[in-house]
């Protein structure tokens, strides 16, 4: 199994360079927000270990919301973030990227502070890589290569499977054998490929195991203290939940327009949002602890196709910025934005509330999980208002949703099974 890695290279945009940067980003697209895989700056399509990537200018007007609570308004710089998800170790991917697209990367980062002609791109990117506080991968170990190969396999098989009614179990087995033979021919002719998975790197495996043990252990150590402090913590939480201001005005039409024109150009969409954490140590610690728990759940529990009830998120991450005063959330999801919100509100409102209720202005929650996102219209305004336009977005397998991908994976697994009962063979044929 090849585990996935994430990167988020983030740096302040240099004074006076923002307009130029935006212009450059625009040249990378073939449609608004949709990267041309062969664009001259960063030809994403040539990196076959890259699942998703985006370039986004992080400029958050909602920091002004802090003033409603009487806090001073911090002067955050505008950042450029280069975010992506890839197969295998990060260092390797970044090295490959800077080797084959160094010029384009240099052109991009030349708009950032602290990057000059003499900077070495790889080390600069690694130095500016901001690790996620929590990270979600829909299916840990599934590579771009696998997704593409299995999609090609599905196309060949679905086009060739006989669709007339079958009469007997013998028919089923015969058709399966014929299809297996067909795939063998295609494989030998080089028209299909099914690369065997690579062994899991032992280092990753050990680190993952240690993480799986260490977090609960730390929790166990902290438990007595948490129990003792619980009444105080509950008191502090409830006081804030009752008094924290809700800031959910309807987003400006022009801002909505800017976001919408980037959406629904493929069956998958991007989401980038940014907002300040509520001031004070309580919220800051709370969100830190909760993100540790969410990261743990993503790494060890929700690793196979779903994040609780949501089966439409490919990759997602929560990242602290500016000394934990802000949180950025970025995701790649199947379906339209309204359907994504439908999933959030109707399926996992409790999960969203856990983290985002620590953000300034979030719709009022009760006990950290209730209400919040269930305040449908407030929530929809809130998230749209905090969403940022993603200037450049790349997906390695357009046209495929997670359901398609998982389906294709089962087709391949079934193909490679030695023996199948008649019932199993029929179930497999029905996948086609």
């Amino acid at each position, binding site marked *: 199994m090849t585990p996935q890695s994430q990167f988020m290279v983030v740096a302040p945009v240099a004074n006076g360079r923002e307009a130029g940067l935006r212009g450059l980003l625009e040249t990378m697209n073939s449609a608004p927000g949709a990267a041309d895989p062969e664009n001259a700056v960063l030809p994403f399509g040539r990196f076959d270990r890259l699942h998703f990537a985006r370039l986004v200018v992080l400029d958050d007007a909602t920091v002004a919301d802090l003033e409603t609570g009487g806090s001073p308004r911090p002067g955050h710089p505008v950042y450029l973030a280069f975010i992506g998800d890839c197969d295998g170790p990060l260092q390797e991917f970044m090295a490959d990227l800077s080797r084959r697209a160094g010029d384009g990367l240099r052109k991009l980062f030349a708009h950032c502070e602290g990057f000059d002609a003499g900077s070495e791109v790889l080390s600069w990117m690694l130095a500016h890589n901001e690790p996620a506080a929590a990270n979600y991968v829909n299916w840990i170990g599934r590579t771009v290569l696998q997704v593409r190969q299995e999609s090609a396999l599905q196309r060949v098989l679905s086009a060739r499977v006989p*669709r007339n*009614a079958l009469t007997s179990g013998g028919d089923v087995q015969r058709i399966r054998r014929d299809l297996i033979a067909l795939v063998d021919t295609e494989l030998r002719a080089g028209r299909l490929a099914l690369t065997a998975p690579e062994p899991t790197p032992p280092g990753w495996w050990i680190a993952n195991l240690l993480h799986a043990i260490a977090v609960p252990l730390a929790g166990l150590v902290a438990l007595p203290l948490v129990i003792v402090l619980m009444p105080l913590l509950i008191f502090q939480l409830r006081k804030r939940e009752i008094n924290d201001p809700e800031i959910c005005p*309807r987003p400006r039409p022009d801002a*909505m*327009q800017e976001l919408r024109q980037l959406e629904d150009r493929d069956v998958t969409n991007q989401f980038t949002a940014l907002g300040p954490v509520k001031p004070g140590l309580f919220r800051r610690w709370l969100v830190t602890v909760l993100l540790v728990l969410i990261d743990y759940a993503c790494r060890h529990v929700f690793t196979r196709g779903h994040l609780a009830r949501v089966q439409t998120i490919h990759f997602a991450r929560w990242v602290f910025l500016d000394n934990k005063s802000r949180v950025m959330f970025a995701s790649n999801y*199947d379906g339209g934005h309204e359907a994504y919100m*439908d999933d959030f509100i109707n399926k996992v409102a409790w999960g969203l509330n856990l983290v985002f209720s620590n953000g300034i202005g979030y719709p009022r929650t009760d006990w950290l999980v209730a209400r919040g996102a*269930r305040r449908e219209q407030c929530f929809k305004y809130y998230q749209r208002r905090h969403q940022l336009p993603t200037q450049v977005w790349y997906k390695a397998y357009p046209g495929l949703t997670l359901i398609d991908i998982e389906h294709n994976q089962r087709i391949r697994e079934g193909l490679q099974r030695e023996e199948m009962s008649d019932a199993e063979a029929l179930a497999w044929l029905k996948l086609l």
Partner: protein
Amino acid sequence: MNAQRPAAVTPVELEDIQGILRFGYKHHKEACFLLLRIKDAGAARAWLAQAPVTSAVTADPPPQTVLQVAFTSEGLRAMGVAADIIDGFSSEFIEGMSRDADRVRRLGDVGPNDPGHWQWGAGQRVPHVLVLLYAVPGRLGEWRQAIEAQCDAGFEQLACLPVSDMQGVEPFGFVDGISQPEIDWARQRPARDQDQLAYTNLSCLGEFLLGYPNEYGLYTDRPLLATHRDSGGMLSRAEDNPDKADLGRNGSYLVMRQLRQDVQGFWQFLHQQAGGDPALRQRWAEAMVGRTLRGEPLVGGTSKVIAGDAAAPASELNDFTYGSDPQGIRCPLGAHIRRTNPRNADLPPGGPGIVSWLKRMLGFDAEALSQDLVASTRFHRLLRRGRDYGAQVSMAQALADTPIGSESGLYFICLNANIARQFEFVQSAWVIGTKFDGLRNESDPLLGNRQAGADGTPTDVFSMPRTDAPDERLCGLPQFVTVHGGAYFFLPGIRALRYLAASR
């Protein structure tokens, strides 16, 4: 905004609600829809101030003639309604159906559906006011003349859309208009946010009427005015905000689309695919719809009682869910009626007890998860009030080589309180969604626009799962339905109508 409901529930003011929210006017078999543009705002207001609008109060005998009236946002502007009042309406209504290229794309109005080809509803042909006229047989002619005479001073007529009576059958030949949500007129359903673990056909008032709690137990945004702007006390006060006058109260959004149906194209395609076998042709057509020609659901009835269904007139045709057919063997997953109303609850079905509930909540019940791609239908219901137009086409005519020469179709009309969450969601995520409920690359077999996906994959397929073989598939489906017009309207409460007519 969105405050919790007041302690006391006030009864619904039927006399302030336009009748179409409560009645389909089935006995008013004659109808026509006037699309008007305002030429003299003063005269238009004068007519609207006393227009004979029919309310939702049950009349005995029923009225011989009915008039309903609705506005586009352009219409409100042309009437001289203050900009800040218009800003209080939903953004979908303000922007309209055709003006924003991104909305057009999301609704699938591209290719032959492009608003550039519309007969009305785009560019200079966006109506200001929609007047719906209904009459019992024989009475429409004089009713229309009378209203047109009254409207003459204030309006010019963009179009008069004539309606045909097809005896409850839509142009393709299927019994239509069977499934409707049941509105909780008595306000019995507690207005609080609570998961519904069984499919219910009963909808909170606020899903269709502004000013009442919706399925989330909250009030949908609408224009709330400072009371000094309603010094005459024409409007009621907002339930959730008693210091404001509620312009939305008892009103709704009306979505209208003119859908041209290619009856010959539909039946001839199936005829060819079926090699001329009439039984197979009909079976496929019925699979596409999800009902037989006579309206019986392919999935069959249910023994369970569905809330909000008992009193429905055709409950035997509407009393079902897809719970017993998760794979779409009897009714294909992509069938039209399954897409437009998947009839499921907030949580996929499972055993009793907290463990089962928790497993389903967290996604650890694989069976439940596989049925969870589409959920919570109750937030996406539409109250349909469409009417057919054009000539009714017989099967012989449909299969004949000679073109019919006239156009038939549907004036799709639906009412909803939140256009984005109801009409637009159903249209974009369910109807034209090519990945609906885990399907691969196919949109609604009737309504799909057959546009290829971003990667060039065709979407002109309809698959019918079977128990004992791979899906049966129809490929190369032509486009059967084309959009020829459309607009979003605000259908005001009657007092709000008078207020709008008086305000300047």
